[in-house]
């Protein structure tokens, strides 16, 4: 394995646009070098943002880091690019199972089985989900563990309908919302980083934020965001732009979107530069809906 890693690293150094990053990232991940795998996947994704396998690889690494919210986004993106992507279907099945949505876990596994009927791992996972309904998370995780990516095999020009993946669009949408809500709730409860809910006094209400060095910067950012919100409101009012609804910022290191789940709260989402600003805004708006419900529960 070490030789393979050296060979792939050399190939990638020679040709940074090569798809060798897919294999290298997966090897590093399997070897437990998650941070190295993360760097490789992120760099590859930056060069191949429309490659479903790149999103799948990145999602698996994020899942290893227990960053399920982002893993969901990445697998969701992989499915939008390639609606029958096996790794993404299995990954989403795992996440649905994790939040207790057995029906959606089963639907995604069934779609995976339609895509690859002879995969014994999928059949086993389906049997577990359909059987007792209470298999251990580790069992199902091991059973549906996404396979190593095959370079370029599933790169496709993005048909938009997820229904092609074999799921009913209506219920799937509802289940997606439930999963997103669960992920946002977990993040606001402090389970994950990159999401910060700020009250009108510029104090942290939920979530957490760390800078690239790993320092907790939530409180400092919350305080500054309070000032940003005041200035944004003043600017919009003075220039007759109506009510300010959001602020997208492209930083040299990361992208940030700030929106207002309620008039007395701000929600900030920070993501790698690999995530397009427009997509971050869409995710932020969906997270804002969930944050509103989270705030209602805290009341």
């Amino acid at each position: 394995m070490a030789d393979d890693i050296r060979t792939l690293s050399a190939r990638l150094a020679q040709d940074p646009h090569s798809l060798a990053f897919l294999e290298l990232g997966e090897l590093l991940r399997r070897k437990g070098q998650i941070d190295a795998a993360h760097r490789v996947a992120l760099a590859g994704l930056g060069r191949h943002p429309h490659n479903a396998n790149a999103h799948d690889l990145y999602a698996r690494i994020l899942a290893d880091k227990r960053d399920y919210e982002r893993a969901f986004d990445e697998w969701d993106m992989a499915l939008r690019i390639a609606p029958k992507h096996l790794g993404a279907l299995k990954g989403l099945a795992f996440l649905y199972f994790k939040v207790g949505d057995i029906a959606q876990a089963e639907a995604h596994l069934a779609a995976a089985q339609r895509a690859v009927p002879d995969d014994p791992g999928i059949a086993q996972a389906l049997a577990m989900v359909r059987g007792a309904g209470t298999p251990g998370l580790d069992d199902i995780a091991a059973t549906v563990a996404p396979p190593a990516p095959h370079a370029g095999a599933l790169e496709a020009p993005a048909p938009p309908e997820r229904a092609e993946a074999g799921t009913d669009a209506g219920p799937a949408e509802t289940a997606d919302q439930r999963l997103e809500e669960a992920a946002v709730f977990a993040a606001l409860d402090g389970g994950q980083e990159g999401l910060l809910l700020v009250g009108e006094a510029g104090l942290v209400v939920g979530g957490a934020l760390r800078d690239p060095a790993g320092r907790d910067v939530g409180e400092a950012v919350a305080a500054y965001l309070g000032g940003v919100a005041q200035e944004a409101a003043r600017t919009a009012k003075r220039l007759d732009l109506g009510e300010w609804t959001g602020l997208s910022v492209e930083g040299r290191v990361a992208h940030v979107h700030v929106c207002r789940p309620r008039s007395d709260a701000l929600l900030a989402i920070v993501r790698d530069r690999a995530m397009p600003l427009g997509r971050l805004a869409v995710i932020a708006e969906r997270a804002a809906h969930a944050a509103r419900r989270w705030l209602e529960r805290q009341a």
Partner: protein
Amino acid sequence: MNGYGAVLERITRVPGVRGAMLVSVRDGLMVSDQLVEGLKGAAVAALAASLAQRVSRALAAAGAGAPAFWHLHASDGGILAVTAPEDLLVVAITAPDVNAGLVRLELLRAAEAVA
């Protein structure tokens, strides 16, 4: 029209852009502008510079690096800005239904031209 005026005029050709200007972030003063009637250049410059400074501080605190581009979304329009060398900011004031991607590209071009 000075050299900056020609650069800014390209931005205002994008449908939905109500005006564009070059602002000094340090003192909040307008360097050059192409605004439709009714927009007060001095106010736009001061407000955009002040917002840019606050955004910079927030991003620095988050470890997100210096802001290269920002977009304030509002119900009746928006402000898009790209940082340029010499502590300058290229700003566009827009209607709500503008093609933000196109405006961003023109702002980036303008920032390069200013450099």
